[in-house]
């Protein structure tokens, strides 16, 4: 079944090109667009977490917004109440999300497939209400949420948005390498063995509960880091930001990028952030035209309804996602040229 890509020379070249493009982005676009890319990266990191959990370990979560929220709030609280610098706060947020994820992984051990999806669904739906809870209000700011100033630029000549973007990109590259190394290690093979055949995996001496809970924690940690970066780029956290639909966004991005892939999350993150804008632009374009075309604007459904349709179509026709498609196309051209 699906394994992480081996690092070939060509993949490495592609990766370096992507990195180059990534470094160029803030130089050639506005601060606002840079901010959007930072958002895409923060979602992308959360998707990477979901891919590790679902794509490589076979545990489902439709509640990653909860871990995203934990990371976001932990970072915000550290800065607001303890005056800890934003970068250390990311580490603390990651740790907090890991612990909660690990603990949530314990009951998840006994839940398979659908039931786990159900429990995580409950977690995601209950999160906004928990964040509003009176007893935590001193820490969470209740309904008002917490304002977090954008971290100061790390280098002279960079705006706050540009600096944050580079930090986020660095973290994402680092986390992708970490994910790749873990998945290619003994523990990674254990994760995949559990996904493919839990009974056989147990027979081979894999400690199922340990691997599954740790994977859950790891996945939550990724989501938490994504959440912390999300907080910095949007400068604000509030309970209703982290509703169930954030979990859906993460899931949609993962599936569209390719659920059992690492590079796919780049496409997933970009998709989630930029496609709604394009859909909106399209609507505005039609509204701006005259004659029969203007009527089209009235029947363009809202972006997220279109994504619902796309999600279902992707599952029908390209369940391997964008990156899976690229891989298949690559393999096909190689066969063509060889034959």
């Amino acid at each position, binding site marked *: 079944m699906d394994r992480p890509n081996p690092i070939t020379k060509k993949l490495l070249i592609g990766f370096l090109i992507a990195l180059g493009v990534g470094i160029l982005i803030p130089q050639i676009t506005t601060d606002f667009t840079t901010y959007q890319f930072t958002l895409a990266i923060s979602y992308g990191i959360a998707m990477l977490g979901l891919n590790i959990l679902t794509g490589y370990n076979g545990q*489902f979560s439709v509640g990653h917004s909860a871990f995203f929220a934990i990371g976001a709030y932990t970072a915000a609280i550290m800065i607001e109440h303890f005056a800890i610098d934003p970068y250390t706060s990311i580490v603390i947020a990651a740790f907090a999300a890991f612990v909660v994820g690990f603990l949530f992984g314990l009951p998840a051990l006994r839940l398979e497939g659908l039931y786990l999806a159900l429990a995580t669904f409950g977690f995601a739906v209950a999160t906004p209400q928990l964040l509003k809870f009176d007893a935590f209000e001193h820490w969470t700011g209740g309904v008002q949420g917490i304002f977090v100033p954008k971290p100061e630029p790390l280098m002279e000549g960079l705006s706050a948005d540009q600096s944050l973007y580079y930090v986020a990109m660095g973290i994402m590259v680092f986390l992708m390498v970490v994910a790749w190394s873990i998945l290619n290690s003994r523990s990674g093979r254990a994760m995949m063995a559990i996904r493919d055949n839990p009974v056989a995996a147990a027979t081979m001496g894999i400690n199922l509960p340990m691997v599954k809970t740790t994977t859950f924690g790891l996945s939550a940690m990724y989501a938490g880091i994504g959440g912390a970066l999300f907080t910095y780029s949007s400068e604000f956290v509030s309970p209703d930001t982290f509703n169930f639909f954030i979990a859906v966004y993460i899931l949609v991005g993962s599936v569209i990028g390719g659920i059992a892939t690492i590079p796919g999350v780049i496409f997933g993150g970009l998709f989630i952030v930029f496609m709604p804008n394009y859909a909106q632009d399209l609507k505005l374009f039609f509204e701006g035209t005259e004659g029969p075309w203007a009527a089209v604007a009235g029947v363009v459904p*809202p972006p997220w309804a279109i994504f*619902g349709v796309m*999600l*279902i179509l992707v599952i029908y026709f390209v369940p391997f996602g964008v990156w899976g498609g690229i891989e298949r196309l690559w393999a096909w051209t190689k066969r063509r040229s060889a034959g």
Partner: protein
Amino acid sequence: MDLFFQLTLAGLAIGSIYACVALAVVMIYQATDHFNFAQGEMAMFSTFICWTFLGLGLPVWVAAVLAIGTSFIAGLIIERVIIKPVENAPVLNQIIVFIGLLMIFNNVAGWIWEFTIKPFPSLFPDDFGFKSELIGPHHMGVIALTLTVLLLIFLFFRFTRVGLAMRAAAANPDSARLVGISVGWMLALGWGLAAAVGAVGGILVAPIVYLEPNMMSGVLLYAFAGALLGGVSSPGGAVLGGLIVGVLENWLGQYVPGGSELKLTFALILIVGVLLFKPAGLFGRVVIKRV
């Protein structure tokens, strides 16, 4: 003491709405082993359809019956067109299709009817000819109507040929196919019925929570909790589970400090707790898996 009875009766009323949605969830689960995450949004959509009929000037009961009928047909079509292709797909793909449906219904409802909160009329008169200090007329009507609906469904499954065929298709698809039952259509019929029962729940809950595209997310979570508590393999259990959850929710809101703000968390704890300690629920069959 009056407060306690008021709470309990109101809990039973809201619980019977959960029971409707829980029953819808269980009906689909029994037939296909899916949890329909879109069940709540489908019920919400049905309620909006009812609202549209009301806007055309139809009497409230006519509008409700038309909306429930429309939901039945829509449920049937959804199964045939959208769910059938992933019947044998991995669990993840199925969950994703349900999430896709959830998004579509939620956003299309917001698009057509907007996200503003709308009041929704009760199906029942303000006065049944007698009054009670303990329970309002809407809640009284809700309990009576849901019990009737549930009884009808029970009679349908127990005493009609189609009901029997549907049970056969769910219990043992292969054998059912051999005796000439069209299993695919029975599943579709199950979806239609579930959509219709869910619509009843939506129309009954709308006067209480007001009509808006996100009105069902909490209700669905309680319905899941109720279904699991009663046992996902037992429709009767799911109904009872829904009622229990409704009553517990009301008690919690009143008697536990801070409880009214943690109702959803309570549902989450209930779900995880039941799955951990009594996965078959109170009335469900224990599933024994051979490895």
